[in-house]
């Protein structure tokens, strides 16, 4: 149980709120590169509506409502000098300065007093990231999965109806895996006679959480395994404040939980398929983006796959989970630790310091490698198999190419290095 007051402090992300100010120290992906063509697109980030547009090699970000009479800049003209509102033609430069007001008298200086709110954007790894905080902006962290080559990528997406914090709390809650993705999965799949999860069901004996430079590393010992196994020795991180790194057996994933407003989260599953072994993958023309369905035709949550189960759990906690009415036990210590970490970082920001994981040093930003176990759950390939067939990847338009890549890579490895799994992806 937390007080209502503290729950509000930890979950409100709008401008001027303590958490909104902390979260404005980081970059967030708002769209896939492929989504932004010649027409502007509209998004909401941290409670603010904004419009993104592409002007040559640059991406502009401007407040969504035109400062004139509040028409939407989503329906604006992109031109040489910036973006021109479709309603009365006011033109704004990329810095938000009003450059023209065509209907005003020719000698008017009114435009000099109009300034639209603008933000910075950058592209990396097939995503468009936006920064909404104060200048100078920190670097956009070049995490390994965004910069690796010789791999395949796809991006799943869903707009979710809940606060981002309860999604992040799920990433420091290892016990849910064996229940939600093991026992509950098999209950649901048993009813419809679908294949059962085995690896995901394995029982947790011990879990631990360590704060490091970019967030919290999660470790686990499953029944029959020891601290010598990668699940404990290496683990995988929650990347502060809004990402999870997960995967195994040559499948790597970021789950990016973009706080849209207090009650919505834009969720990206950023998948990288990079098996061990000898093979060459030509660069992809563009990274395929696909929607991950979360509801069935009756409007119930789709719960026969891993990510649908997670979404059900997060959403059913409520738009903003009422933490004044919960009952935490010892197995929730990861969640408690994450909340405390947020509270400590709020304090740092109030003292004018950079919070955890803000990158300003160019010399470390070529490629930031994060820890992630390969031989996950004691069996890299077995975990990958269940994660690919029973996870959101099943909706990927390149699911078959991914299968072929893993088959090809496996052939190049000595037999002793491959872990065979009966079923195929």
């Amino acid at each position, binding site marked *: 149980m*937390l*007080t209502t007051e*503290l729950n509000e402090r930890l979950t409100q992300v709008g401008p001027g709120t303590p958490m909104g100010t902390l979260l404005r120290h980081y970059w967030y992906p708002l769209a896939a590169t492929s989504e932004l063509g010649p027409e502007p697109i509209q998004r909401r980030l941290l409670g603010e509506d904004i419009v993104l547009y592409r002007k040559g090699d640059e991406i502009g970000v401007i407040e969504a409502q035109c400062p004139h009479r509040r028409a939407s800049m989503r329906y604006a003209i992109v031109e040489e000098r910036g973006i021109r509102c479709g309603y009365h033609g006011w033109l704004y430069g990329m810095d938000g300065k009003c450059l023209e007001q065509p209907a005003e008298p020719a000698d008017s200086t009114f435009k000099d007093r109009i300034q639209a709110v603008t933000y910075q954007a950058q592209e990396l790894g097939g995503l468009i990231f936006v920064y909404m905080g104060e200048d100078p902006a920190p670097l956009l962290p070049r995490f390994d999965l965004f910069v690796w080559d010789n791999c395949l990528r796809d991006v799943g997406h869903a707009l979710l109806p809940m606060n981002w914090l309860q999604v992040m709390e799920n990433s420091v809650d290892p016990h849910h895996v064996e229940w939600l993705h093991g026992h509950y999965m098999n209950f649901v799949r048993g009813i419809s006679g679908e294949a059962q999860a085995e690896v995901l069901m394995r029982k947790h004996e011990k879990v631990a959480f360590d704060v490091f430079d970019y967030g919290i590393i999660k470790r686990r010992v499953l029944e029959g395994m020891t601290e010598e196994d990668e699940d404990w020795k290496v683990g995988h991180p929650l990347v502060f404040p809004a990402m999870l790194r997960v995967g195994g057996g040559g499948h790597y994933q970021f789950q990016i939980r973009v706080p849209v407003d207090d009650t919505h989260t834009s969720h990206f599953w950023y998948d990288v398929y990079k098996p061990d072994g000898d093979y060459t993958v030509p660069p992809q023309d563009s990274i395929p983006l696909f929607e991950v369905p979360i509801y069935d035709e009756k409007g119930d949550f789709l719960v026969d796959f891993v990510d649908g189960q997670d979404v059900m759990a997060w959403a059913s906690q409520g738009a903003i989970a009422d933490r004044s009415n919960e*009952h935490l036990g010892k197995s929730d210590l990861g969640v408690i630790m994450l909340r405390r970490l947020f509270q400590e970082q709020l*304090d740092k920001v109030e003292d004018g310091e950079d919070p955890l994981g803000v990158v300003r040093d160019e010399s470390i930003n070529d490629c930031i490698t994060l820890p992630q176990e390969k031989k996950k759950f004691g069996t890299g390939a077995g975990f990958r198999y269940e994660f690919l067939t029973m996870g959101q990847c099943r909706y990927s338009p390149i699911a078959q190419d991914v299968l072929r890549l893993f088959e090809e890579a496996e052939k190049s490895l000595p037999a002793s290095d491959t872990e065979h799994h009966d079923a195929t992806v």
Partner: protein
Amino acid sequence: MSFAKEAGVSEIPNAPLEGEATAIDDNVQALVQFCPHCGAQLDVQSFVQEYWTADARLFHVWCERCRYVFDVKPTARVTTHEPAHE
């Protein structure tokens, strides 16, 4: 004690006794109001989080002023083991 009823727990040896129930149960923060290390008031900028291990009610606390982290365990009855004797 309202929390015990809510939690469906009938006997909680370490919790305040039935007759002692006060407004504290409606306000977690009020049960641990001051930092045991520096004495600062634990307001919304500090962190007071209730959790349970078995029948013990604990409060995980981080003090915003001195930055200490500790667990507070309210104890209604102190029990000890029977000393070994010949």
